[in-house]
């Protein structure tokens, strides 16, 4: 997910060309306090004019308790981007209040309540403690994201970037997301020159179960995609498993072996997930 500062026309108009799966048009941390109105208006116009085809478009609004948050919602919700991202969500009370406002706006514009998705960002210790309750609050919440920089600040960590302080938070957030069966995105990697560092972090968080990562520079996209996109070997194996599964299902066999290894339902699920990540239509096999 490529983060694009909302007040920067040059970047906004080119957001979709870099091959990221999604773009995040940011009205929050990437925009100066005295340009919040400017960014809001610019992003609104861009959403209407630029086709971000091939990309999921998310807009990160300011928190509802800031002077800008409500205006952001009022202007952005009617435009119905693919998703709206709510930063610094800490409590169940907050998320229910915000979603209520969103739905009121949608009602005003005769829009359904389930088209635009909601992503929540957990960026404080309190938020981490409440993450499961927040995430399961509404079916329209389809992703949780961790804001590592803000979380490290909230936790008053001395070293913000070694990943150790926020490690528990990452795992807790992943768990909550999996319990709700929704996506979970990792935080930004700030050292844009360090390709190896990015790769290592991406591989680590993939193992933890994250389904995506925030990108702040288009150069990071290739590496993250490489890590998250299954290899040819993995894909071939997954195809084999899924095909075998279909064959065996037709004959009523639930558990079988592929290449000498037992394949049961969880293994098939993982194989289907691999195909999904590789953009291969399992039905078409």
């Amino acid at each position, binding site marked *: 997910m490529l983060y694009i500062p909302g007040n920067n*026309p040059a970047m906004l108009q080119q957001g979709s060309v870099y091959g990221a799966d999604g773009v995040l048009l940011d009205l929050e941390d990437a925009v100066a306090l*005295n340009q919040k109105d400017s960014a809001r208006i610019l992003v609104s116009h861009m959403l209407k004019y630029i086709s971000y085809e091939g990309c999921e478009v998310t807009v990160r609004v300011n928190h509802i308790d800031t002077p800008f948050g409500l205006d952001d919602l009022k202007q952005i919700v009617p435009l119905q981007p693919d998703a709206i991202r709510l930063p610094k969500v800490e409590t169940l009370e907050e998320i229910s209040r915000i979603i209520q406002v969103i739905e009121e706006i949608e009602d005003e514009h005769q829009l359904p309540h389930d088209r635009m998705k909601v992503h929540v960002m957990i960026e404080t210790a309190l938020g981490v403690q409440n993450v499961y309750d927040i995430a399961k609050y509404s079916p329209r919440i389809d992703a949780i994201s961790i804001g590592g920089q803000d979380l490290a600040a909230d936790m008053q960590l001395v070293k913000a970037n070694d990943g150790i302080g926020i490690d528990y938070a990452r795992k807790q957030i992943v768990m909550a997301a999996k319990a709700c069966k929704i996506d979970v995105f990792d935080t930004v990697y700030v050292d844009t020159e360090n390709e190896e560092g990015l790769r290592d972090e991406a591989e680590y968080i993939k193992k933890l179960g994250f389904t995506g990562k925030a990108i702040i520079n288009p150069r990071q996209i290739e590496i993250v995609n490489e890590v998250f996109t299954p290899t040819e070997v993995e894909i071939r194996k997954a195809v084999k498993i899924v095909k075998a599964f279909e064959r065996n299902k037709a004959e009523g066999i639930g558990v079988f072996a592929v290449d000498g290894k037992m394949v049961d339902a969880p293994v098939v699920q993982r194989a289907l997930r691999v195909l999904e990540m590789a953009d291969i239509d399992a039905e078409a096999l």
Partner: protein
Amino acid sequence: MKLKTKAQAGSFESSDVLIMVEPVEKGTGRKIELSSIVMQQFGEDLLQQINRDLDAYGMSDVRIIVNDKGALPPTISARLETALKRAAEMQTGTLK
């Protein structure tokens, strides 16, 4: 929309446009000063677009200075809207 003060929006960055608006006496009409790095190719387009947008706001008296660095149409409309709203002191949620 009634303009109360001078205001501007945008920047000098490439692909952006800096638009400054100023209220004028009723009856003065629209005074638009336009400079653009793509004046030859899009100067006319820019002028037409700004006038169209001003029509939509029902604004017949205003002074506008436009300094364009190759902004696309949505950017131009956005910066104009922002400048006008700032000039009309309509923006809640900005810090002056």
